[in-house]
């Protein structure tokens, strides 16, 4: 089992960050994400909370031994469920791998919340664990590779989203003026 966590502040108001959430991909810094589909979405008429379920398709080159043993392909799919609650100004995003799910689980949670009127805190945690009674060394190797991939993608994701938010702000300012 590996744990990962990071936190960061974006120099943008919370509502801008949440609007930007839907515009993150495609992104040259996250070229591994190649498709995004909404499979379910609901707006709660009482609470105003928006729940969205998405499937993201990623292309990630796995080491040959992983592909051989676990029969994976280059295409990896992730299921993402997000909740946007305007009354608490919380946006939470939970992602779990669909592909290789019988072998390993990568469970990630992200939260965006205002830290001031013009700043938004971002916190992210992940639990990555190989499942099944596999050969210990194969399970450890798979887990290590997933962790490395995850850490790298998390760094890229942060940089990529910073760009998106800045560009979006410039775009919106031009429309206003």
């Amino acid at each position, binding site marked *: 089992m590996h744990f990962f966590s990071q936190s960061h502040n974006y120099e943008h108001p919370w*509502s801008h960050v*949440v*609007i930007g959430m*839907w*515009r993150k*991909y*495609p992104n040259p810094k996250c070229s591994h*994400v*190649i*498709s*995004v*589909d*909404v*499979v379910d*979405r609901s*707006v*709660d*008429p*009482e*609470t*105003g*909370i*928006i*729940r969205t379920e998405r*499937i993201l*398709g990623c292309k990630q080159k796995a080491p040959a031994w992983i592909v051989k043993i676990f029969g994976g392909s280059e295409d990896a*799919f992730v*299921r993402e*469920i997000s*909740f*946007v*609650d*305007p*009354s*608490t*100004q*919380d946006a*939470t995003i*939970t992602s*779990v791998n*669909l*592909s290789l*799910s019988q072998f390993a689980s990568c469970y990630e*949670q992200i*939260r965006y*919340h205002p830290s001031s009127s013009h700043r938004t805190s971002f916190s992210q945690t992940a639990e990555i664990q190989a499942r099944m009674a596999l050969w210990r060394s194969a399970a450890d190797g798979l887990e290590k590779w997933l962790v490395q991939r995850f850490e790298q993608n998390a760094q890229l994701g942060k940089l990529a989203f910073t760009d998106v938010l800045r560009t979006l702000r410039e775009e919106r300012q031009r429309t206003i003026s």
Partner: protein
Amino acid sequence: MADSLTPQCTPLKHEYDTCFNAWFEGYLEPAVAASSSPEKRSEYSKQKADEFQQKCGNVWRSYRECVQNALKEKGLDALLQQAREEHPLAEPPVVTNEPSNKS
């Protein structure tokens, strides 16, 4: 905008995303303001939920049907069903507000 998992669904996806983004950008800030009272919040939420249905309901149905077929073709529908049973995630996670380190 990102592509759909199959090319035939991409135009519908783009149309749906455009519709949702336009609605959402108008929705969010007033929603935060309306949260000042529970009555205002439910009145605003109901009105905006209906509006979303009216504006984007048709394209959503077409897009969703396309994606559901694509998931079946790729053999992902069973996997998705299993994932939903294992982690329904029907409610937002409980958020604990850590004490801030304000000096």
